[in-house]
């Protein structure tokens, strides 16, 4: 395909360097470049500022990983968003008003190298996102396997509209989810009726509760504090109220709580 930016080609074929200089000297290119940096900066700021500000306290590695993905994927995609929006804004600023159409623009049908670069660029972007995700998934799976021996197990049962937590090793059953800090925990989740989704918000993990099957998730609380437990799958009338609180506490506090509930420490 002919490169249509060469309408004004001089008699002497310009070198690639000269062509680049010529290209960036154009008014619309200059303006687009400025807009590119502005839009990119906006998206970087959006990612870096808003998500950490909005998200609840980070109390596990899984939660940290979710937050990093939200922040850094925004930052990585900022230049792409910036470019698209810069070109759109530049075009918007060149608008033609009136009742008759503007005169025709240049007949650019396509531009092979641009399409190729764009496609390869988005492939690379997708591969980064995929690699990041796969590495995280794998490291979580590895951690789950290696922590399994030292973990405490909590059997979680969702029922309309109540969470029940059974600690088999401690021999207690409660409706508040308390966990010792730094100790891996395995949640065995099931449902007494319809689907629910077990969501200890500050721990950043989630798994559905189904009847007759047990689903499993794993995490390690890394910080002492309050956790909210919610249901993330519409489960009928009082879905919104199917929540409870709990806490990540020091191991000694946890043991004291277990004893106070009539259980026994390991």
């Amino acid at each position, binding site marked *: 395909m002919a490169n249509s930016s060469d309408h004004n080609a001089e008699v002497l074929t310009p070198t690639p360097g000269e062509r680049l200089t010529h290209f960036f000297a154009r008014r619309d290119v200059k303006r687009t470049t400025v807009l590119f940096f502005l839009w990119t900066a906006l998206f970087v700021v959006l990612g870096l500022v808003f998500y950490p500000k909005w998200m609840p306290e980070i109390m596990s590695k899984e939660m940290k990983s979710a937050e990093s993905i939200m922040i850094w994927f925004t930052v990585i995609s900022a230049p792409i968003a910036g470019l698209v929006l810069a*070109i759109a804004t530049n075009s918007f600023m060149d*608008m033609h008003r009136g009742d008759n159409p503007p005169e025709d623009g240049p007949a650019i*049908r396509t531009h092979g190298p641009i399409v190729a670069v764009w496609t390869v660029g988005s492939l690379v972007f997708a591969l980064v996102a995929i690699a990041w*995700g796969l590495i*995280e998934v794998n490291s979580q799976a590895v951690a789950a396997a290696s922590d399994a021996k030292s973990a405490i197990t909590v059997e979680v049962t969702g029922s309309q509209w109540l969470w029940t937590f059974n600690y088999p090793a401690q021999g207690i059953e409660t409706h508040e989810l308390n966990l010792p800090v730094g100790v891996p925990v395995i949640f065995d989740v099931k449902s007494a009726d319809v689907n629910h989704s077990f969501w200890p918000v500050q721990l950043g993990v989630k798994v559905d509760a189904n009847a007759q099957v047990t689903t499993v998730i794993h995490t390690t609380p890394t910080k002492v504090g309050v956790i909210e437990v919610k249901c993330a799958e519409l489960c009928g009338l009082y879905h919104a109220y199917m929540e409870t609180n709990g806490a990540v506490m020091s191991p000694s506090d946890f043991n004291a709580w277990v004893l106070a509930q009539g259980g026994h420490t390991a």
Partner: protein
Amino acid sequence: MSTSTKSKDVARPVPNPKRSLITRLHMGTGVVVGVILAAIVYYLLKKSLLTYTDGAADPLSPHDNNILLLGTMFTWSIGFMIGIGALIGPWRWLVGKDLTDEEILYMAGDGQGVKRYFKYCTDHKVVGIQYLVGVMTLLGVGGTMAMMIRTSLARPGAHFVTPTVYNSLVGLHGITMIIAMIIVATGPFGNYIMPIMIGAYDMAFPRLNALSWWVLFTAIPVLCSAWFLGGIPTGWTAYAPLSIQAGPGMNAFIATIIIFAVSTAVAGMNITTTVVAMRTKGMKWNRVPIFVIGSTISVALAIPAFPTFMVSMIMTGLDRTYNTGFFDANMGGSGWLYANLFWIMGHPEVYVILIPGVAALMEIAPVFVRKPLFSYNAAIMGFAGIAGLSILVWAHHMYIAGWAPSLNGAFMVTTEMISIPTGLLFLVLIGTLWRGKPWMKLPMLSIFAFIWDFLIGGITGIYLSDVPADGYLHGSMFVTAHFHFTLMGAALTGAIGGLAYWYPKMTGRMLNERAGYISFWFVQIGFNVLFFGMFMAGAEGQPRRVLDYAALYKNSNLISTIGAYSVGIGMIILLWAVIHSARHGKVAPMNPWGAKTLEWTVPYPVPLTNFDELPIITSDPYGYGKGK
């Protein structure tokens, strides 16, 4: 291949069409026959079910009640189709005859004025307008429900509606909007404009075209009846076993989906066949307007996708009526089976919605920028790539379901790959904008809004499809905000752009520009405020579909509600403009935008067979520009 609407001189005597049965049937007779048959079946079923259980005046068990309601609803749909005359043709075939030429001409609505919109009319232009009115009605109903949801969520404490009403609002808003959005572009524009665009006299199967609309029409009262039967508690996803436990309103949901699936299957086959077989001479595949390509890919994607929804609903219905236990784990069934069937439809379906909207904007862009569409091939590869990948990504909706966690990685790979063809769609649009001076009219404005909205929807989609981030975000308001950016911000914006663009051809008048601009800014600013608030609520940890929320989320929800009211005001202005301009707008010239596609070469009102003589195509319709 001439079509059935072309009258031929036939020597044999034909009965006077004035006395033919078909002339006496219309929407009214359809409703009458539908209601009467439904009432008879209701009565008979109730009688027999009461005898079947334990006689006398015992109230029906829930299972029997479900049988009764489903039977009545399907009978209504079939009865309406009989009453409007849909089966006259098939009946004639059965007895070895066919409709007469006069009857065929009559069914095309020849010279019947406004009446033909209420008849079983085979003219694709009539069907297009019927779809447009249907879409606007559904969007109005769904939008009103959205406003009620947002009103209810304006402050914490659930003061506005009861939990039952709230859950019904959420579910019915969802399914109403999904149905509306599936047909929003391919219904009105795919029927009215597309056959003219490809230079055809009509659709390939004009009678099936009428069938697809009127079958869909019968689903609307069924859907509305859900409200009076106690609503649906399940959201539009209708997950089992909640759907099996649900009350009688669920039957309306099931019947609606099954009826709708029939309609889309018929419409999908019709549009696909028309585009494959009825393009005019010279319109090779590389000269077909991009909107036609997009719509065809979209409906072709729907053909394999929607039957799984239909099947899952039939199975849900059987579970609810005859206790078959397909999805009941206590009987050896599986809720995961339902979730899989649902999302095997559900993910292709979002692209069925998206693609025609984008394609409409791609059709618009060259006309208003006065440049060729940038890289037509990339646009097609983008659509085809999305359609191909979209059937391989369904379980990204089930990352946290606990079903086959070891497959999460694979579904993450396919999902992230979708960003490549999606990127091509952006490239085509910004490439077309580059170095052009866009003519700032309503359709053009939609392109800019689309680029912004779809970018936000796309970027947030990238981390939702990454498993660890989804572990936090799944089922939260963040997801709701994300898919509204794609379905409303992108697809609906595209469809509204298409409406502004094709309005002069469909009504003969220009859409009121000032009202259009005012509406545009109310809708777009409101939309962004609304879903910014919802991203915030989701990131803060608010689950979706909740009636009430903690004080922590009160700012984000208030922001959303304020935005929602702005959208509501804008939509009402747009509705006013669409209705008002149809009668009082400026009379449109034949080709107000100076476009090069075929629909602008025919006058308004468009003649019954569109063209006296089919045009011959020698190039694609994007030959704008200096120095070509």
